[in-house]
């Protein structure tokens, strides 16, 4: 899976800047960590012929370990693997399979690499405890060996760098919003589709440089190939799991079975999630079926939501995912959610996160005071 970064023109014209922004994935990933390098890594390792030497940069190994840890992979043997990638292909195979099942790795990649012609932003109006992405994360620290002691000033340094990087990102994001707004404003009334009303950046760019349509077509062809490959994989997937069971069955003490919260039949390691039943007959594998199962999942989620009594009584539009940004002045209700609703939702989220932060800080302060009391000649002055 690749994406094509169209070349940025040398002049700082705002059109080229806007297009540059729209062709990178600017918005924070739903899963928190980039998936493409993860998959590339696994494919590299798993397709290396046995006997050939494979030396990997240790940053790559560390990235993979932290990505797995983030998603809640609890098997300590993986985290004890050496950093140069010289051993552990079996553990990696297990981890890869776990990811395939647990976070629907391939489906997520497909969703992320979709060709987009509109300007998009991510919207999440789900309730926190039902959010798909957060289900997999964990607080459990992996069983690393004892680390070297680190100077706290260094940690503060790193924390400060993160803070500044976030600020730079924020400023870039604000610039993108400004540029999008300008384009939407300038092209109002131009679009064939009355509901949309104006161009997106990609559409704008195609008007200005029509020869770029070739690249767009290439991207669409690539996407089609990926979808076809995915469908082929889905056909053969049960074979993969059977093979895994057969070859890994003598893997004693596999703690993964215990860490999985669902009730699993013992014959398979990780059965596919019960809500997605993909038919194996080739004729039935069509995209419409896939969309139907997704719709079924959405309905099930909404039912669960109705059961829960919430702080906010009024029924809201529970959107989740990527949406096209449209500047609209009409009052027509479209299958859409308004910016004011999203802003209100975010403000509520922000308030609840602030409350949580305050609470955590208070707890931290109390813990520090307790520790300081136990030490001689130490006074704790909290900020």
């Amino acid at each position, binding site marked *: 899976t690749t994406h094509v970064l169209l070349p940025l023109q040398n002049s700082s014209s705002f059109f080229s800047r806007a297009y540059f922004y729209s062709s990178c994935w600017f918005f924070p990933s739903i899963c928190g960590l980039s998936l493409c390098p993860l998959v590339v890594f696994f494919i590299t390792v798993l397709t290396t012929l046995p006997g050939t030497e494979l030396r990997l940069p240790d940053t790559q190994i560390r990235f993979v370990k932290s990505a797995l840890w983030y998603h809640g992979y609890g098997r300590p043997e993986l985290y004890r693997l050496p950093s140069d990638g010289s051993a552990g292909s079996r553990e990696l195979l297990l981890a890869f399979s776990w990811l395939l099942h647990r976070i629907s790795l391939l489906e997520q990649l497909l969703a992320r690499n979709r060709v987009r012609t509109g300007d998009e932003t991510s919207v999440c109006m789900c309730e926190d405890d039902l959010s798909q992405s957060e289900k997999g994360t964990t607080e459990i620290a992996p069983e690393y060996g004892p680390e070297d002691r680190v100077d706290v000033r*260094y940690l503060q340094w790193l924390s*400060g760098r993160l803070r500044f990087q976030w600020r730079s990102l*924020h400023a870039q994001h604000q610039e993108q919003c400004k540029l999008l707004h300008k384009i939407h404003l300038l092209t109002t009334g131009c679009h064939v589709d009355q509901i949309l009303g104006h161009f997106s950046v990609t559409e704008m760019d195609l008007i200005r440089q029509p020869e770029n349509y070739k690249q767009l077509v290439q991207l669409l062809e690539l996407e089609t190939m990926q979808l076809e490959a995915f469908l082929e994989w889905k056909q053969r997937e049960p074979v993969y799991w059977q093979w895994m069971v057969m070859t890994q069955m003598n893997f004693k003490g596999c703690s993964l079975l215990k860490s999985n919260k669902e009730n699993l039949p013992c014959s398979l390691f990780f059965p596919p999630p019960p809500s997605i039943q993909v038919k194996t007959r080739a004729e039935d594998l069509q995209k419409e079926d896939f969309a139907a199962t997704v719709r079924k999942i959405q309905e099930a989620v909404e039912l669960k939501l109705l059961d829960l009594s919430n702080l906010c009584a009024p029924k809201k539009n529970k959107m989740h995912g990527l949406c096209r940004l449209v500047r609209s002045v009409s009052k027509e209700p479209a299958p859409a959610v308004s910016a004011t609703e999203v802003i209100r939702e975010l403000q509520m989220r922000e308030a609840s996160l602030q409350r949580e932060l305050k609470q955590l800080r208070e707890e931290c302060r109390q813990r520090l005071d307790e520790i300081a009391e136990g030490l001689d000649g130490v006074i704790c002055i909290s900020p």
Partner: protein
Amino acid sequence: MSIVTVQLGQCGNQIGREVFNAICSDVHGTHGLCSKKENESYHDACKERFFIEAESGVPVARAVLVDMEPKVISQTLSIAAKSGYWKYDDHSHFCQKQGSGNNWANGYTVHGPRHKEVIMNLVQKEAEKCDRLGGFFTIMSMAGGTGSGLGAFVTQCLRDAFPSSFILNHVIWPYGTGEVIVQNYNSVLTLSHLYQSSDALLVHENDVIHKICAQLMHMKQISFKDVNQVIAHQLGSVFQPTYTAEDGLHYSRNPLGDLMETLVPHPEFKMLGLRNIPQMPENSLAYSTFSWPGLIKHLRQMLIANAKMEEGIDWQVQPPRPGSSIPSSHSTNKLLHFNTSIANLVILRGKDTHSADLGSFRDPSLYTSWLNPQDAFGAWKTPRAFNKYEKSASLVSNSQFLLKPLDNVVRKAWNMFASKAYVHQYTKYGIEEEDFLDSFTALEQVISSYTIL
């Protein structure tokens, strides 16, 4: 990416004008020593950073001018417009009909709050004109009366109004034997307040620049204008467009962010010093050539030995050899002679920068024990020469450069405070003795943190 400059007080406005002058004349000069394409990129990047295109075609500086008196501001506006190359926005300034005395407390507790809304409206307008707000650059003196008190207040307002923006305060350290008797009080109050709201304090010492003018530029009668022009040249050498190590294809669109990330992520260490070489009278430039190894060697020794200019460097001072010294003499050596760094940023401009080797700045013995050079050293480069210097190297350093001056100022202020001299001038406007004590405590903490590196 655009920087909004806030010029505060007489000092801030005069220096600010020289800075925009230096930037503009650099961009319009024909001495770029690079390809036309490179020159155009540089020009575009510089324009976006500091100016707005106006209908008249004359670029307008992205700046807000603040002073209590009208005289300096009107001078600043007219001198800029006369140049023909650039100007200030006619509406982007604030001043009162009359001045208000040399009093820090007056500026901080009276004038600041009174005029906060007007001033922040001007700033907001400038910020909105930016497609991308890269941060704020304030220029002020540390020890003058109203400018420093008002400046501290305005910085706080900036932080409140723009919590996720970068704020860099350029601060002028007064002459040691300055004319304002309470300058050390003002300095202590200014620094302690800025430390809370600002991300970094970039310091220029008047004494040092004066010496540069006398010894390096061979000036006989040194005016404030001369000093300000040297300061402007040094600032220009840092903030004109460059390429960072990560992206060699486009001029950086986030200079303040890059600088902050390299030098001041730790909230306790915000004091930055600036060195720039070579520095010489303009008429000598044509007859001098420099090599990168020579320049880099000198700059490195200036860092290690805490030299203020490229003459009179103490070449005896060397970094401590790992594991060789006895702890007590080791720390004495460090305190008296060797300047320990937290982080450094080197900026190279001009011919053959690609061949310049900065390995000597990556020596771990230069840096404090808890940081290694990968984290603590950054380099920016551009082949485009700056301000007629064929080769120019600047160093922005977060190190013990300012430890001694800071210690001196705090000590003198404390001695004065012990007898409560002149304190009534401050309590009259609501700055109580307790506020003084808070400021002293804060600065003692900073001094201690820098000492035990």
